[in-house]
């Protein structure tokens, strides 16, 4: 799978970090999300799906193959 993060859309809620801490982090200064790995392993699929669903800015997209 591939994860896409639309950084300009991010509202720094940190919801993604709570849902998938192995895949997302937040910048310290403004809280904007950071994508830690663009191609996470399959074991993280559920976490990433949760992050996509709870992101209040619709800024994360998961491309499954």
């Amino acid at each position: 799978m591939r994860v896409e993060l639309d950084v300009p859309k991010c509202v720094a809620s940190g919801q993604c970090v709570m849902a998938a801490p192995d895949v997302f982090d937040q910048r310290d200064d403004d809280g904007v999300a950071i994508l830690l790995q663009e191609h996470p392993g399959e074991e993280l699929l559920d976490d990433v799906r949760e992050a996509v669903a709870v992101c209040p800015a619709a800024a994360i997209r998961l491309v499954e193959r």
Partner: protein
Amino acid sequence: MVVGASAAGLAAAETLRREGFDGTLTLVGDEPHAPYDRPPLSKQVLSGEWTTRQLPLRPCADLDALGLDLRLGIAATGLDLADRTVRLADGSRLPYDGLIVTTGVRPRRLPGDGGAHVLRTLDDALALREKLTPGCRLVVVGAGFLGAEAAAVAWRLGVHVTLLEPAPVPLAHAVGTEVGRVLCQVHLDRGVELRTGVTVAEVTEEGVRLADGEVVEADEVLVAVGSLPGTEWLADSGLTVGDGLVCDEYCEAAPGVYAAGDVARWHNPLFGTSMRIEHRTNAAEQGMAAARNLLAAPDARKPFAPVPYFWSDQYDLRIQAYGCLRGHDEVTVVEGDLGERRFVAAYRTGERLTGVLAVGMPPKAVRAWRRAIAGGAAWREAVPAGGTEAA
């Protein structure tokens, strides 16, 4: 079937598919647009930074992949629980086996405000944006979060803004008096006129007329005085409606009927109280929870017990809050400083830490407080002595 095609409805539909439901899935929405995001309406859309192309919640391809029977631009007008059918404005009656109600809220109105703006839908935002030209006079009725965000955007566009608010301090009922003062000072600093303790009697041709007869002149009026849950269509359904569609802790309103998002009033066991939340994050989380519970065996359902979260952007301020602030007994600044507009305020209700509001603080610091609220932390343990009480 999911009635209501915004954030909660889309989250419910996506979750139903993800959890393996492969039957007919109808998504009904009263607006003609594909599901789009609302928080940017009072921010990037109103300011013109974004075009409408950036608003859809999902790309077309992702929406198509859900295989929905998508009915947009058609409002639901009635529900028959016995027959398990939903009536639509185009006269059709659709049967369902399971139903999730996500019909949101609509703006509360004022007498005579037919010519005034409200700000709930994309069409509302585009209509207001068109009128916000430099030098025009805008009166915003209601200095809550929506009114304050719109005022901030309008100010940046060169509009003369007057905010009218009935309370002595805007937002004090939600965030407390001292924090409310800090939040409204950002408007005053920029020359936005804020008049508190004034009640608007009606909107007129000239602007608005206050309860004492004074007329505040305006070219445009935005009415931002709160919302009403979208439950009219359920009036004769037999479901319990009382400031929202009343649900239990599983978000269930009746057998096979669930609700989520702004319209749902449910029992949140984390706080031991009934609540209805008009926040973007709750819409998604509750849509997912309702969908999972609808599909689950009765003994496998899970109570929906979230820590509510919201944010608001005004000028250069990013306000974030977790938990329940309303009805608090005490507010204490636990980190930072109110005067520097960089702080975390903690809210006590009874003996518990029930909420925090942060401005300008690092995200990791704020997340630690969220964890404490989620864990049901006792106030005495979570808040070290030495905080500054902030009324």
